[in-house]
């Protein structure tokens, strides 16, 4: 066989392998999405019940109130699409986000947008932590938009009779309360992402297991903070950092890996909340310098956002008895 023939077979083989890989990947992705859809179905029921329970503590959490707030945001976005922005929009905290979202959908879907029916709003996550800065609801918002293909010319076939005129959107919108009303704080994120479907549903601060555990650990360690013993008296300074910490925690609960782990978990949550909306919870657990390092790791011009964050692992690299760094 000639060299050109071998090269031809090799190319055909490569193409076949690539197509096979793409098909397998697509099937795996479809199966994963199907599993997540089933999981979301159960989750929506649980979140709805949690919201009803939370509404007993704070009426703002009633599912009707949440849905009405989502519909209100969509109506305001529709006013932006019509070119006659509603006067109510300017006075809202989330005016900039609603405008940006509306314009981004125009550049993505096309011009001449208008909702063709009322949006379906399913609750995915409910967190009633008892403070405006940390209360959140995440919703799955599904709706259809009519688009004008002649004004858009964005999608294939836009100038033909076969042009797409209706687009279905399936999004995750997160709302936070301000002065007794829900406002939009995020339009990013997959509505079927694993972390949002497994996030704790918190009907009241008394059911906020993570925070209650952290507070209990702090309470247990509080007496040790009044001790006169210095850390150097408690541990072997030559031990590896994780052992050094364990040694210390035996005599002083402030160094308990459980307490430090709870603090790190709290930090990850507050960091994600700062990505959506308020940095206030982050100020409770980090210094100003550290917040700047988290949000602007590459300098002030670029901001880093994280979503669907989960703490995978943590380990001590340098114990409290290490010599201070210069």
């Amino acid at each position: 066989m000639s060299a050109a023939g071998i090269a031809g077979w090799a190319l055909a083989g490569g193409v076949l392998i690539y197509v096979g890989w793409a098909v397998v990947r697509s099937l795996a992705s479809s199966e994963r999405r199907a599993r997540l859809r089933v999981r979301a179905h159960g989750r929506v029921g649980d979140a709805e019940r949690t919201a009803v329970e939370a509404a007993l503590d704070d009426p703002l959490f009633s599912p009707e109130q949440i849905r009405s707030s989502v519909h209100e945001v969509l109506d305001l976005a529709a006013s932006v699409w019509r070119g006659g922005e509603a006067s109510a929009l300017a006075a809202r905290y989330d005016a900039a986000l609603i405008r940006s979202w509306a314009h981004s959908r125009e550049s993505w879907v096309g011009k001449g947008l208008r909702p063709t029916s009322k949006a379906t709003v399913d609750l995915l996550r409910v967190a009633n932590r008892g403070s405006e800065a940390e209360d959140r609801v995440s919703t799955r918002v599904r709706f259809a938009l009519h688009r004008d293909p002649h004004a858009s010319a964005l999608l294939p076939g836009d100038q033909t009779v076969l042009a797409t005129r209706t687009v279905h959107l399936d999004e995750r919108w997160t709302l936070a309360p301000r002065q007794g009303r829900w406002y939009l704080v995020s339009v990013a994120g997959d509505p079927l992402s694993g972390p949002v479907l497994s996030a704790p549903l918190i009907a009241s601060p008394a059911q906020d297991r993570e925070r209650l555990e952290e507070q209990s650990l702090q309470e247990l360690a509080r007496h040790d903070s009044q001790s006169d013993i210095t850390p150097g008296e408690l541990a072997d300074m030559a031990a590896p950092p994780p052992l050094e910490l364990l040694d210390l925690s035996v005599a002083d609960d402030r160094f308990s890996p459980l307490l430090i782990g709870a603090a790190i978990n709290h930090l990850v949550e507050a960091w994600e909340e700062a990505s959506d909306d308020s940095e206030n919870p982050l100020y409770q657990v980090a210094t100003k310098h550290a917040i700047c390092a988290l949000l602007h790791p590459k300098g002030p011009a670029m901001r880093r956002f994280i979503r669907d964050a989960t703490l995978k692992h943590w380990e001590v690299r340098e114990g409290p008895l290490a010599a201070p760094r210069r």
Partner: protein
Amino acid sequence: MIQTLVGIAAAVYESRDGFVSGSDTDIHDLELVWRLALHTGEHGEPRWLLHDSTDR
């Protein structure tokens, strides 16, 4: 002060205008070095506060 190595899985975005939109499903691993210091809260409770963070 303690230094910890923290591994986080998250969808990570970087933006200049502060607007993030879309349904990105790509989850990335972030490895960060966090320096935590022991402080005392309002009610005398111990609190580990983040003092510095760097990407590993």
